[in-house]
């Protein structure tokens, strides 16, 4: 069966890494995967799965998202129960609001708030926290989710970000799917119905990340494990 994946392109950053990683995983599975890097509504709505990436400043991201009308397209994909994977600033854009760039309204698809690491400036040894939070950090899984299947709890994933979603900012907290420690515990992944969103970059997280992308290619968009 053909697996059509739309990577939403709103002009921000490097979409090729995630495309190449998905292509690689598709080949490993010997499955026909077709990847579209696009902002075209028809192509996105025709796809089986949606990837919503993002890098850079949230103000620029949200301006591009709003200009291209990406919000309503994502709403439609949510209603159509298509599996959606949001990555990094893509995850942050799903929140209600971000403190970055003096405060930016986001898509409010997940009730949450994005804050700045610089406000919590010391690590547990009292050393100044380096920002961006850049590198491989452990993710503790909150609960079983199909996207964590076959991945060892506390696996390391690659992060690079200066803003983050605090644990207390997500409402309800049952939507938190994974947590990571950097100065304090923060949200590494959230899950809501057919959306799974990660602060880390699965496409850059070697075996654990590729396994997550493989799980995404197999995910039916519900939060429970699929029937065997």
């Amino acid at each position, binding site marked *: 069966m053909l697996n059509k994946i739309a990577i939403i392109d709103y002009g921000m950053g490097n979409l*090729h890494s995630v495309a190449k990683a998905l292509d690689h995983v598709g080949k490993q599975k010997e499955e026909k995967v077709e990847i579209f890097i696009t902002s075209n509504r028809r192509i996105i709505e025709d796809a089986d799965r949606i990837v919503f990436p993002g*890098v850079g*400043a949230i103000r620029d991201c949200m301006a591009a998202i709003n200009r291209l009308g990406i919000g309503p397209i994502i709403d439609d994909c949510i209603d159509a129960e298509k599996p959606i994977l949001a990555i990094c600033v893509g995850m942050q854009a799903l929140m209600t609001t971000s403190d970055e760039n003096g405060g930016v309204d986001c898509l409010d698809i997940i009730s949450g708030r994005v804050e700045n690491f610089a406000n919590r400036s010391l690590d547990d040894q009292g050393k100044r926290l380096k920002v961006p939070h*850049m590198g491989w950090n*452990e993710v503790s899984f909150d609960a079983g989710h199909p996207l964590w299947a076959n991945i060892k709890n506390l696996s390391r994933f690659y992060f690079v970000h200066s803003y983050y979603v605090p644990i207390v900012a997500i409402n309800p907290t049952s939507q938190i799917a994974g947590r990571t420690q950097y100065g304090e515990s923060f949200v590494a992944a959230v899950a809501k119905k057919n959306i799974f969103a990660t602060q880390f970059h699965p496409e*850059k*997280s070697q075996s654990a990340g590729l396994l997550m992308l493989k799980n995404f290619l197999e995910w039916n968009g519900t939060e429970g494990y699929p029937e065997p």
Partner: protein
Amino acid sequence: MGLAKRIIPCLDCENGRVVKGVQFVDIRDAGDPVEVARKYCEAGADEITFLDITASHLGRQTTIETVKAIASQVFIPLTVGGGIRTLLNIQDMLNAGADKVAINTAAVDNPDFVREAAERFGSQCIVVAVDAKRVDEDNDSLRWEVFTHGGRKRTGKDVIKWVREMVDLGAGEILLTSMDRDGTKIGFDLELNCAVSRSVSVPIVASGGVGNLQHLVDGILIGEADAVLAASIFHFQEYSIQEAKTFMNKAGIEVRESASAE
């Protein structure tokens, strides 16, 4: 638990081949960059840095093709440096699959380029590479100066002031190479590393001088680096990435277990 310190093998490339200069003069060949990168990724490298040492002088298309080939096989972060001078150069490298670009000479020529690059592509992908050399005209305090053109050209800029300026303009990471130590195998310039690490808020990658595994440990624990970069000790298989991680872990440094070890 927390953020792991990174080990970054560096591929210095010239005409599509990996090379490593001893103080940028005597150059030996260590193989095909795509093969080397893939091997390092499998061996548990946390990141790969690809520096095109000819890029300032020659055409860039070969480099772009090499980066594309690496990025389609390597699913860890990839930093590309060498001859990054324009926003278009950055765009080309990011499109080819690089995650970060390292800017060196172009930042010295026009510091505002770093601001433009960070605003356009985000600080997370803008690394400023600083080649530092000790200068001894005032003997009462340590001082380092920024050099360019592979250590051939002196800029008159003080390293500490320079890295602060670069971070203020939007650099998301500093790749700090000691030109005094590069190729010597006697260890990082730890005083330089520590001074820079304490001067700025962004992560520091220490580079130049690694000859054994204790040097990597010292770079983190004494030099206060967030990542350590090395070439020849890995290229010539004096040590494996796994040996480096095991050694660092025993010294109390948090590292990412290699995939093969999990």
